[in-house]
């Protein structure tokens, strides 16, 4: 029975993967444009999408770099936003069961979307297809659309005139919005905004954002009924 169910289950997973890849790839345009507005050139922007390949971390990097933060602050913020990807490994590894160089590829493709589509499948073959097609599809489209966005951003000129500084703030709001599903997350979000605004005038750029992470650790340890699932979003 399970074997007979495989073929349709796999094609359903692949269809899901491709629709997620298109939706996610499209917002690579906004990353590419905002990255060049933040002061990165086109090759640096592409290096982020190819090497880092995790939307939240990439937006975090250009946010800190663009507001005058140090390399250390930008690296630390991007890495901390990416910590949730480490928690996807234990969910993904048993599904795909690969060794050697393919494991490195699987690790690079382990993001919110590929984990969500892969773990949502009941059939093992469909789970593998869901993970690889989503990871691979998002990788290709995310990079193509990043390039398109970066070239667009380069042509735009003064970013303030087109409201691109407001767009950067909206991008972070869009990334955090689906994660505000419980009380602990909402409290942490409010406290983080307050900490960032109060400490910005007195601390070097980038440090207020890192300080907010400390707030989260305190609340996370003290608050027992907080979120237990690291992904509540369809964004990378």
């Amino acid at each position, binding site marked *: 029975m399970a074997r007979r169910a495989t073929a349709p289950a796999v094609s359903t997973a692949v269809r899901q993967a491709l629709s997620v890849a298109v939706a996610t790839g499209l917002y690579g345009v906004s990353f590419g444009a905002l990255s060049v507005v933040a002061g990165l050139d086109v090759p640096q922007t592409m290096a982020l999408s190819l*090497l880092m390949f995790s939307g939240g971390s990439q937006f975090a990097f250009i946010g800190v770099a663009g507001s005058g933060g140090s390399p250390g602050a930008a690296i630390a913020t*991007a890495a901390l936003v*990416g910590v*949730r990807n480490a928690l996807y490994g234990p969910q993904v590894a048993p599904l795909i069961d690969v060794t050697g160089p393919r494991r490195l590829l699987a690790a690079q493709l382990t993001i919110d979307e590929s984990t969500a589509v892969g773990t949502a499948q009941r059939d093992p073959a469909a789970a593998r297809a869901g993970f690889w097609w989503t990871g691979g599809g998002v990788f290709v489209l995310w990079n193509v659309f990043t390039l398109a966005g970066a070239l667009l951003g380069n042509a735009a000129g003064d970013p303030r*005139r087109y409201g691109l500084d407001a*767009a950067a703030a909206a991008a972070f709001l869009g990334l955090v919005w689906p994660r505000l599903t419980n009380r602990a997350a909402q409290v942490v979000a409010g406290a983080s905004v307050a*900490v960032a605004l109060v400490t910005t005038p007195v601390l070097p750029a980038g440090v207020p954002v890192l300080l907010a992470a400390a707030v*989260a650790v305190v609340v*996370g340890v003290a608050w027992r009924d907080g979120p237990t699932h690291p992904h509540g979003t369809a964004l990378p």
Partner: protein
Amino acid sequence: MKGALLWFAVVAAGVATFAIKLVGHLVPRHWLAKPQVARVAALVTVALLSALVAVQAATSGGHVVVDSRLAGLAAAAVALLARAPFVVVVLVAAVVAALLRWAGLP
């Protein structure tokens, strides 16, 4: 940050982010599959992204600044409440801020 220093930061952050993904695939499963770890990691992501909203929307050169960005952000929140897709949310913020600046606001 510019030039070589910015390149260093881009590559180092990329390598760090990849290493974090790889760790998840290599360490024994029970090390990371703890509710406490998942809870703190989820909240750290929320904290960093929320702080970045505040810094991007309301600060400039180390000062708290109120300008058209906040109106753009409010419009983005309305778009999110209306379940608009990410790209639309970002565009709405840009258009509102651009219109206000065109009208002469800071």
